[in-house]
């Protein structure tokens, strides 16, 4: 059982590597859709936070969700790993598909879904454990026991998160000993360790200084080769810099969705133009 589980994780990694050419193939062939929503409405008790949102998110690309505070962009992001389920009295209508599978179907294993869809939060939220244990956490809860496997996966993830060089000598030190930017990259490494195919980022750099922010952005650019990334940001420049597509939300509605270039240079909607322009100054 243990073996199969680890093998499962390994297969996930291997298939990803093996799948790379196919992905590139499909990408060159056209756009492979990773996430798709159809007429999604979302309610907090009586409040309708999302209205008839329909969107297709491309695989292995960065999609930015922008919009004023309270526009529903974070709520929308949290649909994809069903984090909204944790809040009492929420309700969803419409369809939400990842890799063609309805993730709100009764038969869906939410924990398995969250393993597939990783998340990085607004504020770095490492566990009060060592750096190593933070990254190993996801592996352990998913049943990994083999030490050498865990150690290898931790190193791999830390490398992928561009943190390995900085922490390799102090893996046993507390995660709280790291700087804010390092902590956020640790959280990214932690999310990568369980080999997700999608990475959700909820304003991942908003609590960081400019230098750390630059590092995170650089990292996002590298990660999009392997992962589908959806990022919420209130920083227009950041959206423009890191994303391939951008979705603009306002009052729970998806106003406009298209390539980042188009959204920032020549949006179809007046609202979008004003928001984007206003933010640019």
């Amino acid at each position, binding site marked *: 059982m243990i073996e199969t589980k680890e093998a499962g994780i390994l297969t996930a990694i291997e298939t990803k590597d093996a799948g790379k050419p196919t992905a590139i193939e499909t990408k060159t062939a056209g756009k492979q859709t990773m996430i798709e929503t159809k007429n999604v409405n979302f309610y907090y008790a009586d409040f309708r936070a999302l209205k008839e949102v329909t969107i297709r998110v491309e695989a292995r690309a960065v999609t930015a969700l922008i919009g004023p505070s309270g526009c529903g962009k974070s709520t929308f992001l949290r649909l994809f*790993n069903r*984090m909204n389920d*944790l809040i*009492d009295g929420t309700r969803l209508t419409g369809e939400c598909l990842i890799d063609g599978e309805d993730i709100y179907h009764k038969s869906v294993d939410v*924990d*398995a*879904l*969250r*393993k*597939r869809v*990783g*998340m990085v*939060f607004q*504020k770095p*939220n*490492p*566990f*009060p*454990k*060592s750096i190593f244990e933070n990254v190993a*956490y*996801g592996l*352990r*809860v*998913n049943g990994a026991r083999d030490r050498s496997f865990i150690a290898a996966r931790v190193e791999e993830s830390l490398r992928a998160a561009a943190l390995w060089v900085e922490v390799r000598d102090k893996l046993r030190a*507390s995660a*709280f*000993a790291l700087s804010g930017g390092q902590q956020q990259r640790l*959280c990214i490494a*932690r*999310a990568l360790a*369980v080999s997700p195919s999608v990475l959700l980022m909820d304003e991942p750099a908003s609590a960081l200084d400019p230098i750390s922010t630059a590092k995170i952005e650089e990292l996002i650019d590298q990660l999009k080769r392997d992962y589908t990334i959806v990022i919420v940001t209130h920083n227009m420049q950041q959206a423009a810099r890191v994303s391939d597509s951008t979705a603009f939300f306002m009052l729970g509605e998806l106003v406009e969705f298209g390539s980042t270039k188009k959204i920032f240079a020549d949006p179809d909607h007046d609202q979008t133009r004003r928001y984007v322009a206003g933010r640019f100054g």
Partner: protein
Amino acid sequence: MKWTRRLAKHTIEGLFTLSGGVTSLVVFLIIAFLFREGFGLFRSPAVERGYGLCVHAENAVPTLDAGQVKRIFDGEITDWKEVGGRPGAIVPFRVDDLFTGGGAMDDDPASVIPRVEALIARTPGIIAFLHADYLPGTKIARHLSLGNITPSDFFTGREWQPAASPSPRFGALPLILGTLLVSLAAILLALPLGIGAAIYLSELAGARMRAWMKPTIELLAGIPSVVYGFFGLVVLAPLIQKTFDLPVGESALTGSLVLAIMALPTIITLAEDATRGVPRAQREASLALGATRWQTICRVVLPGASSGIAAATVLGIGRAVGETMAVLMVTGNAAVLPRSLLEPVRTIPATIAAELGEAPAGGAHYRALFLLGCILFAVTMAINLTAELMTARSRPKNI
């Protein structure tokens, strides 16, 4: 006008300052009074105050300790050679024997002493316990001094018989062990229930369940301990008597059960606070990694709340150790070394509550009860300080 206002201001602020120090003052006063009275025990003679012991002038026994005296008068030691003297039967004598013998009821020392002296002179094996007024001269009788009660008598003595005559026994060991037994058993019973309920309340229960469960638990924390004791007496004691087929239902186990129930609200409230104190961000991080809710509770919530839960446990023990009335009502109050949970025991607070009313102020018994109070005070103080240190460190910067 101006100066009266200033005077008023200074007076009021002075009152504030005075009141601010009042708790510290009370704590110091408690320490002072308790310990002064309590440690007075070690200046009390081992024989009842105002009385003396004497033996025949030629008796070779070197000296006796309080335990030996007690056993002599209880008839357990009957020969002088057992206590290091020359062989010969021991004849214990109390002055009351003189009067119950049917002789004269005259208690004037002038008439009693000659009779006592005559008795001692003709009885070489005698040991006489007499009121100080009746003690005969040293030519005829050798006065035995038992010295004062010692700390080892108190802390390691196995007999608590404050009314024993001629030498009352103040061995606190049965009481200390009884208190520990009842409190620890109570905590062992209450912990799984309390922590389980706290986890249920903070992690699993729906909003509506919590909305009425929390106030109910708060309410139960406020119910007087006599009411719990009464419940234990009329419900639990008969239940335990029947279940274990005991001669009486009042036992250490009954006390532990009542204490466990009483400790539940404290433990639940504190443990729930501790688990709720674990940041939401950490729970979300764990869930977002595909951990199940149970894994999140086990690996993130409980470790994060551990110091708070530990503090809750420690405070629960503190409460249990100091609880008086409920325990007094249901433990049977036998001051013997506890051997099992199913026998009656007596705890320190119950002893104080039961006996202080009968102990003459200033006597050895009174002081012994105060010394028990000192133990209680010291133990609960240590427990509270420990809990405080634990909660102070509950926001860890490091692992």
